[in-house]
């Protein structure tokens, strides 16, 4: 299997619809909680250690072969906001569509048939990574990185932030992404023996609450 498959999957231009979502950054900008590079960095750091860790562990667990339906239910329980559950399923469906064209396999077809409305994106990401011959850590890296790169890119548009500054934020967070991936991969290994309850459930109250506020707006730049 190709190592470069990781680059294909992690590429922001992979046509899986992620660019339409801000990861909660749009609502944080409106509320005045993200005003520049420093607050963007704190936002991304908080998201990485909560929703990012949870997503990375779900993705890694899917690579290790945990039951997709159980992981999807675990993702539901870890996502109290219906707006975020909806966004995660939509993103999961879009990712699956792009992945089936890229790495056709009966396993991906089976997930599409079982979840016509889409499964949670991190779970799909794990199944896709496995199909592409990637490891649990690779999948965790994709999930953890995406959880910070999404808001960073969105804030460039929302605040006209200098793209160099946004990229510098991602550079400074890189060592923390490594640590989150280590924790996620470790938890996923434990879950193989102990079941999905061993996966982290780290949550960010403001991301969940903000997503519900955002979903009620008549006009918004991003879908979530």
């Amino acid at each position, binding site marked *: 299997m190709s190592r470069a498959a990781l680059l294909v999957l992690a590429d922001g231009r992979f046509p899986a619809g992620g660019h339409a979502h801000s990861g*909660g950054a749009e609502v*944080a900008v409106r509320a005045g*909680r*993200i005003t520049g590079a420093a*607050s963007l960095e*704190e*936002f*991304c*750091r*908080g*998201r*990485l*250690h*909560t929703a990012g*860790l949870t997503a990375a562990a779900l993705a890694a667990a899917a690579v290790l072969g945990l039951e997709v339906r159980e992981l999807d*239910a*675990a993702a*539901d*329980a*870890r996502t*109290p*906001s*219906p*707006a975020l*559950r909806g966004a995660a399923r939509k993103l999961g469906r879009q990712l699956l569509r792009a992945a089936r064209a890229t790495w056709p396999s009966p396993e991906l077809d089976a997930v599409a048939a079982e979840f016509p409305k889409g499964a949670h994106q991190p779970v799909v990401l794990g199944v896709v990574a496995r199909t592409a011959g990637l490891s649990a850590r690779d999948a965790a890296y994709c999930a953890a990185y995406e959880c910070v790169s999404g808001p960073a890119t969105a804030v460039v548009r929302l605040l006209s932030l200098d793209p160099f500054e946004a990229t510098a934020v991602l550079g400074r967070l890189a060592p*923390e992404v490594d640590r989150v991936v280590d924790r996620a991969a470790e938890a996923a290994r434990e879950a193989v023996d102990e079941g999905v*309850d061993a996966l*982290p*459930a*780290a*949550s*960010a*109250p*403001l*991301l*969940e*609450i903000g997503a*519900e*506020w955002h*979903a*009620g707006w008549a006009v918004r730049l991003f879908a979530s």
Partner: protein
Amino acid sequence: MDGVTGTGVRATARIVARADGRGATSLPVLEGEGPLALRRTRGSGAEARVTVVGAMSGPLGGDRFAIAATVERGARLRVGSAAATIALPGQAKGEARYDVRLDVAEGGELHWLPEQLISVKGSDLYVTTRVDVAAGGRLVLREEQVLGRAGEAPGRLSSRLTVRVAGAPVLDQELSCGPGAPGGWDGPAVLAGHRAVGQLIVVRPEFVAEPVVARMLGECVALTPLAGPAVLVSALAADGLRLRRVLDAALGELGG
């Protein structure tokens, strides 16, 4: 109580609520231990009431507290506490633990409404709350955490709240804050300077036929239907008093 040891105090309290067959609820098991004393208080109608009385302040570092309550088929139990639970720094090394296990059988109803948990500067507490509600069971559970006493920096507080209905997970949430918690906990994605965080979870079989619509109940308060017959109110506030006001209003909105 196993006693005070070099590793802290261990105490477990147990409650079993049983329908007595005459329309009321009896408490065949009501066992407090050490700092977790239990008092039966005046109930109303079919409901039995229990108050957890903190006979000692705590938990301190190294302590391990546990409470288990079982509500049997058709029984109704309401549990509150006489005062806030205060996590304090201790002589013993390591974190303190507080584990709550709640089981509600079919046709049973549990109102679990303790006072706030206050994380004092220098304390280190890990709280787990695990609830299993059988199909046809009912639950109202409130959890409030206050980070630091007035004007004080918080201690380290980690918590995990897991709720299952008919064996399926409907809510699984972990929160970690204070010194030593993973970065960004007080930042714009997580708490953004709020010092009180609360959750109110309501499980009712009727939510299957009449789902609740998600709505905002305040700037930092959202009412959300979960993936199952349950609703969560998630709230952030500047302090414990404001948090309680918001959660009381939310419970009123859900019809008590």
